[in-house]
């Protein structure tokens, strides 16, 4: 069809061929593609585990798989989805691809380190997969001690080592982003002209660099206790099991923001482009990302309200947790206000953005429930918490991820995705998601504990609804996998700027040339200035 037209120009895809040209590339765009392929595989694995979990939970007794297998399934679902999909998701793919282009740079600051960080994810992932194939791990993705250090007879060390190695991938990506934003902005690209996607990834980089070493140290301590029986967490060896929870959540709560901040950055881009307006309250949205990055480090203790930590620690952590809610609320209000008097397109990425705002709102509001001490005592470790964080992680991050993939797909591949199918899949994802996870709020308040292989009969109706929703959701996720692949060959040729968007990434060819720009752009306008999108639009209203 239009193959010839796409390949007329030299771009990052056709500049060289062969496996070696990919595996040794230092081009941030090619590395982003490597990440896309890698984390898509991980997402599919995590999804298969989730499907098996939901199928087991169709009936109250544990009858499809054994308890041991069930425990391994939810552990591996969590480990794969958190450490090998959600944490790299937006930054390693779209961040890698677009952060340099959006600030007018030719690459990230450290291209070799960028490639190294991909290899680290591969090595970490290989270790985790080895652990699964060898026999699996059954500690839950939270690795609570002393179960993980003393009692579990599964592949804890291999899994922990995999997460340890993958953590360095995350640290290096964050470091690379921070340095790039500081040092490599194009002339005229001041801090407050940067797209909000860049701000969000910058804030994320700060968390990755400051937080991830703590989980690395914690896993080393688990290793020391499990292998050398050095008493750190197990009281039988003189350790303190709750210390582990403090260390674990000191990273893993900020990690929630590693997962959701870049997604928020994507939403800022989508809302602006498809309303043809600058994001309302640009400065507030930018600073709210930084505020979340900072305050996010002060709230870890809200995971420990019933752990036996002191009453007053509980009070302080509950109080601080409400502070982190405000910047998130500010973002939601500003995105909504951006729509006001806009020119709103219903293109697929915007449908995902609407989905994100709605689901993240519910995820965020239910966060207020679990931050409230008296409420959390009842709902912690129940399906209420499962529903809450899936609304944020799946309803939030994955909706934004899919929205971003559709938005930037024409730029990355030079081809459009099929709009009709994409709209249908966005709708199916939204319906399937809510059917899967909304019943879990009710289940949780009723008292259904998480990580239960078998459960009392009265919870069955809600579990059946949830499983039905998961089936719908699976269809919604499979469709893009098929039509995006199809579009690589048969999609309409996109052109440089199919959305009429003002960002620098739309001012270069699709797909971009290897060095991103033929000439380094000089930036003379604010972010999201649609008036300068040449000749494509006229003023109305």
């Amino acid at each position, binding site marked *: 069809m239009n193959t010839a037209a796409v390949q007329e120009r030299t771009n990052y895809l056709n500049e060289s061929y062969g496996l070696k040209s990919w595996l040794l590339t230092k081009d941030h765009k090619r590395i982003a593609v490597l990440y896309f392929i890698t984390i898509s595989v991980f997402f599919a694995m995590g999804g298969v585990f989730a499907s098996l979990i939901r199928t087991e939970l169709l009936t109250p007794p544990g009858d499809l798989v054994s*308890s041991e297998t069930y*425990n391994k399934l939810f552990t591996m679902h969590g480990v794969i989805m958190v450490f090998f999909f959600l944490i790299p998701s937006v930054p390693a793919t779209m961040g890698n691809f677009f952060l340099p282009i959006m600030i007018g740079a030719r690459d990230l600051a450290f291209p070799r380190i960028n490639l190294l960080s991909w290899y680290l994810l591969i090595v970490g992932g290989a270790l985790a997969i080895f652990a699964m194939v060898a026999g699996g791990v*059954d500690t839950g993705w939270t690795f*609570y001690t*002393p*179960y993980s250090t003393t*009692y*579990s007879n599964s592949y804890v060390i291999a899994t922990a080592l995999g997460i340890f190695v993958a953590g360095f991938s995350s640290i290096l990506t964050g470091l690379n982003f921070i340095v790039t934003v500081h040092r490599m902005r194009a002339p005229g690209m001041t801090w407050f002209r940067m797209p909000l996607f860049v701000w969000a990834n910058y804030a994320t980089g700060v968390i990755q660099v400051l937080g991830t070493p703590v989980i690395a140290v914690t896993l080393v301590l688990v290793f020391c206790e499990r292998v050398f029986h050095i008493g750190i967490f197990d*009281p*039988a060896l*003189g350790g303190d*099991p709750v210390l582990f929870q403090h260390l674990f959540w000191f990273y893993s709560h900020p990690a929630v923001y590693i997962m959701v901040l870049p997604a928020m950055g994507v939403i800022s881009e989508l809302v602006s482009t498809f*309303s*043809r*307006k*600058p994001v*309302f309250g640009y400065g507030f949205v930018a600073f709210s990302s930084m505020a979340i990055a900072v305050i996010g480090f002060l709230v870890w203790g809200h995971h420990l309200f*019933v*752990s*036996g930590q002191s*009453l007053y620690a509980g009070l302080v952590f*509950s*109080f601080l947790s*409400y502070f982190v809610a405000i910047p998130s*609320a*500010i973002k*939601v209000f*500003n995105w*909504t*206000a951006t*729509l006001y008097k806009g*020119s*709103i*397109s219903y293109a697929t990425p915007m449908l995902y953005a609407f989905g994100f*705002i709605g689901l993240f709102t*519910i995820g965020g*509001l239910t966060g207020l429930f679990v*931050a*409230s001490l*008296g*409420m*959390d*005592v*009842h709902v912690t470790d129940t399906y209420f918490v499962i529903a809450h964080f899936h609304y944020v992680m799946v309803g939030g991050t994955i909706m934004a991820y899919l929205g971003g993939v559709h938005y930037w797909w024409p730029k990355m591949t030079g081809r459009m995705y099929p709009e009709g199918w994409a709209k249908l899949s966005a709708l199916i994802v939204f319906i399937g998601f809510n059917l899967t996870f909304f019943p879990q709020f*009710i289940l949780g308040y*009723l*008292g259904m*504990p998480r*990580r*239960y*292989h078998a459960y009392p*009969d*009265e919870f069955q*109706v*809600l579990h059946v609804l949830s499983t039905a929703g998961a089936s719908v959701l699976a269809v919604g996720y499979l469709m893009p996998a098929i039509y995006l692949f199809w579009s690589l060959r048969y999609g309409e040729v996109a052109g440089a700027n199919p959305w009429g968007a003002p960002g620098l990434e739309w001012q270069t060819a699709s797909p971009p040339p290897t060095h991103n720009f033929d000439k380094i752009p000089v930036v003379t306008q604010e972010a999201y200035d*649609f008036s300068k999108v040449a000749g494509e*639009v006229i*003023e*109305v*209203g």
Partner: protein
Amino acid sequence: MGTRLPLFPEQASTISAEVDHLLYFLMAVSIFFTLLIFGAIFYFAIKYRRRSEQELPHSVHTGWTLEIVWSVIPFGLTMIMFGWGASIFFRESRPPDNAMQIYAVGKQWMWKLQHMEGQREINELHIPINRPVKLLMTSEDVIHSFYVPDFRTKQDVVPGRYTTTWFEATKPGKYHLFCAEYCGTNHSGMIGWVYAMEPQKYQEWLNGGAAGSLSAAGGALFEDLACNNCHKPDGNGRGPSLVGVFGSTVKLAGGGTVRADEGYIRESILNPAAKVVEGYMADMPTFQGLITEENVVQLIEYIKSLGPRPGQGQPGQAAPAIAGSIPSNR
């Protein structure tokens, strides 16, 4: 398939209704904001839909007023949530003084409960209604969590220390008891029932069990383990007298004091060198691995039963200041 579709758990304890009222408030706020956001998105998306591919809207200038309004109002609301939740938590964390005490020990994968009167139960707990019940809990292996949804109470049960929870059942019935902290293979089998009973029924149930009291069992154990060789009641042993020690303030070797509660006594049995009483040597052997958590509980109750010594109750008074003890040479 189960035909029941409950949407709310029963309100079976004094705290249940309070937690539910907080839930209603949180739900009201959430529904309001969800409708506000969803409504605004739908309204704007339809009203300002793109009518021509060429249109360019005027940009709307950002004002500080709006930003401040939609930061301050939600913040005020969250502070109500914080205060309300905290006040419930305070009540949940502080058992009333008149609460009856029951010991709970979690182990993979069962709950063992011991009443003061000596009744022992596994995966079942019988309690009277209209009377606060305090659980003093520990684990023999990994972390568990004692969760009764109909009471809205949950507390992790942690190895190596005691944690407490309390509740006051308000209506007779049979309520789920779950382990809420993942504890290994058969975690979902670590469940049971709490039977809340009319007080006289509870008394009948208590009388049905023939076992001797906890403290009597502890007394026998105290002799079997030869604790009495050193901990003589008159204080003329290698260890301090334990008469009246419970609840007192103990002076420690090397300075400092500790309140002799259940946690301290448990630690002194399992890890005697951790806090040595002033004037004594750290020469007691550990009983870690030799006795079970249930044995520890029996010993604690025996020590409690040794009653107050005459003249006890002066703050700062060293409990075992007894002549004839071996002087410490540390």
